[in-house]
């Protein structure tokens, strides 16, 4: 108990504030403690969901074939909910509290609600886990989506609603902060707070959709309504199913701006452009939910095309803006300090041994190249026919959430350990290894999933298919070599995840306490605010420009390749 209590202790002044030795922010005890609380809870969910990554991956690797179908889908559901929902949403509440009251130097208002929100979320999360684990026939495992009319226990829908309500409550103190901050003073929020604010709005929209979807299904399961329409459920469900991905995206981008600045010395090269990109998200990103319905009956082609493209790719355009603005911020910040010449010197001389920096940069690169490109490509209505419900889809979203967002959040947790828990890592070498090991292993595993899906058509959500389809001569055995690589790298990725949890928990329990004013090796060379002050057009952004051109080239190549494969097919459709 005292060990836990000591985690929440720091030296504050009489008003409960202290000054952060890394960011220079005035941090109030109340904010800091809730960030810690939500962050720690998230890491627990990560550990739970991560253990199921083991059983899921070792079943799909049919060479091992760990689980029978009778338990596989239960494990897959546990994997999905604990990682995609609980690990991410608990972290996101922490991100809102950092982006709101912490960046603005305020106390956390409405603390009772923060506590109530946390308790409600925990109750909901435990309830969802229990309802999945204890479900009995004829109820089936919900997986992530709980598509009606497959019978899923009503407890699942009910507890999922509880969790969503909890997240809404927990977000209220954040909105209250923004409200009081902008109401009287005509204050322009700092970019990180602005990003968090847009994240918060999109989160509320997503949650409302989720409550509607689950309430609709629940009403049917407890016989309040006689029948349920699978198409309507899918539309409602994807408001939250996709909406949570937009929260993950926006929270991650907010963390990118935050961490590249504090550990990499990045600046904002244009407030106007970066804020406009956030606004584009606000308008367009929710339309993207339709990309889950591209090969559904009953939705018109025009509706699908308009929505899946976020209206002429408004949101994809926004992401490409950040893809330039964030690396350019690092380049400009470092060049101004004279750190690194040539095309990429600013990048090669960056603090790569700092796991917070490396996690953030790998998150940016891997999210863009593996997750972003595939998302836009498979989101084209025709190409979707070749991706839908294959393992390639699973590859895509592991690139976005398991590589992109998870790496960014790894970085954030490690940062919080240093700056808020004020602990040294138990081992600097092991901590530094985390982003490299996890990023590399997960990238290979993800690519193998994409290959298995797109080149061999291996279906997702099945306990076996590659070596054997019971009752049939046919199987996907041509893909066996792909799965040998997948299995090994999935294991390595899981071990790297264990390393992350081990270093985090180990540092909290056994890491030395940082002395006051010690930056724990987090600050970039030359401090946070290096002098210079040259106007932006005087700084070279050649390196970022070159990187972005490479990105566009890869994007075009993947696009053309996918369209080529598609046009090799027999004629389909009116």
């Amino acid at each position, binding site marked *: 108990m005292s060990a836990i209590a000591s985690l929440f202790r720091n030296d504050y002044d009489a008003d409960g504030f202290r000054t952060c030795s890394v960011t220079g922010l005035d941090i109030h005890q109340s904010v800091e403690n809730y960030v810690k609380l939500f962050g720690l809870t998230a890491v627990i969910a990560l550990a739970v969901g991560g253990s199921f990554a083991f059983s899921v991956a070792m079943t799909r690797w049919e060479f091992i074939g760990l689980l029978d179908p*009778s338990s596989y889908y239960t494990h897959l559901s546990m994997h999905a909910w604990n990682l995609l929902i609980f690990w991410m949403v608990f972290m996101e509440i922490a991100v809102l509290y950092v982006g709101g009251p912490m960046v603005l130097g305020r106390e956390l208002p409405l603390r009772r609600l923060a506590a109530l929100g946390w308790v409600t979320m925990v109750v909901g999360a435990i309830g969802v886990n229990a309802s999945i684990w204890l479900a009995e026939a004829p109820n089936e495992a919900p997986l992530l989506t709980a598509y009606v009319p497959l019978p899923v226990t009503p407890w699942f829908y009910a507890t999922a609603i509880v969790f969503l309500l909890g997240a809404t409550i927990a977000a209220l103190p954040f909105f209250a902060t923004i409200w009081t901050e902008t109401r009287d003073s005509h204050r322009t929020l700092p970019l990180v707070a602005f990003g968090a604010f847009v994240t918060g709005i999109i989160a509320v929209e997503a949650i409302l959709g989720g409550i509607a979807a689950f309430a609709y299904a629940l009403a049917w399961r407890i016989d309040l309504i006689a029948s349920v329409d699978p198409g309507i459920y899918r539309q409602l469900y994807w408001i939250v199913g996709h909406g949570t991905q937009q929260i993950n995206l926006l929270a991650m981008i907010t963390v990118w701006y935050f961490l590249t*600045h504090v550990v990499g010395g990045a600046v*904002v090269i244009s407030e106007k452009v970066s804020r406009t990109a956030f606004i584009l998200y606000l308008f367009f990103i929710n339309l993207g939910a339709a990309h889950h319905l591209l090969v559904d009956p009953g939705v018109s082609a025009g509706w699908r*095309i308009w929505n899946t493209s976020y209206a002429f790719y408004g949101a994809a355009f926004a992401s490409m803006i950040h893809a330039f603005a964030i690396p350019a911020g690092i380049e400009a910040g470092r060049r101004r300090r004279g750190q690194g010449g040539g095309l990429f010197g600013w990048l090669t001389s960056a603090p790569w041994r700092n796991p917070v920096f490396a996690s953030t940069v790998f998150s940016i690169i891997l999210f863009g190249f593996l997750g972003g490109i595939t998302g836009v490509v498979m989101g084209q209505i025709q190409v979707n026919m070749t991706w839908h419900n294959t393992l390639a889809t699973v590859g895509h979203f592991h690139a976005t959430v398991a590589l992109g967002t998870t790496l960014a959040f790894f970085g954030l947790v490690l940062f919080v350990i240093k700056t808020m828990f004020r602990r040294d890592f138990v081992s600097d070498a092991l901590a530094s290894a985390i982003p490299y090991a996890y990023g590399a292993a997960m990238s290979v595993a993800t690519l193998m999933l994409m290959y298995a899906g797109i080149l061999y058509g291996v279906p997702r959500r099945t306990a076996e298919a590659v070596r054997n389809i019971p009752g049939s001569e046919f199987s996907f055995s041509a893909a066996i070599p792909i799965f040998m690589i997948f299995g090994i790298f999935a294991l390595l990725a899981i071990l790297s995840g264990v390393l992350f949890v081990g270093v985090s928990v180990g540092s909290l329990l056994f890491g030395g306490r940082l002395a006051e004013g010690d930056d724990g090796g987090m600050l970039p060379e030359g401090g946070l605010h290096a002098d210079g002050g040259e106007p932006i*057009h005087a700084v070279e952004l050649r390196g970022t420009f070159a990187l972005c051109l490479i990105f566009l080239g890869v994007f075009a190549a993947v696009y053309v390749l996918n369209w080529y494969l598609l046009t090799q097919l027999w004629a389909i459709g009116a």
Partner: protein
Amino acid sequence: MSNPLDDPDDDWWNSPVHRRESIWLGLAGAWSLGIFTWMAGFTQFGDQNPVGTTYEVDPDQYQERVGEYKEAAEETDDGLIPPEDDVYVGAMRFNWDGLPAVLEAGREYDIHLGAYDVQHGFSVRPEENLNKQINLQVFPGSEWVIPMTFDEPGTYHVVCNEFCGQGHRTMHGRFTVVEG
């Protein structure tokens, strides 16, 4: 230039944008419009579009319709030969009703897709070339009619790729496409 943790200067909206960032905005914008135009255009000139006609239908009624179709079809060792250009497929836990079927290469069929119980995934590929494959979602309550013309003879395997219950992985069917 500012930093993301402080309020920006008062005239932040008017600060100039770096030349290279402006160029990137142009490139990204052009690419976005370009791929939109291609996708929309392909529905007009392309041969592969997940587009058909959907009818609302009671799952039991759809099952009856598939039954009538099976009556009318000719039975062979390789499967049913459809009486006309309509081919009915009924997805059910854990079977593709109406399959296997024997079709002619080069002939356009109207494939009717529907389910009797829960959602399923209609996933088709020729045996010898797994990277040619398509996937469509199947609902109870909808009958989705999609034209298809198989251009090459061979065996095409159908698996279910939407989770539909514990026996889901056993759900397998076949089209045998013969020279037309």
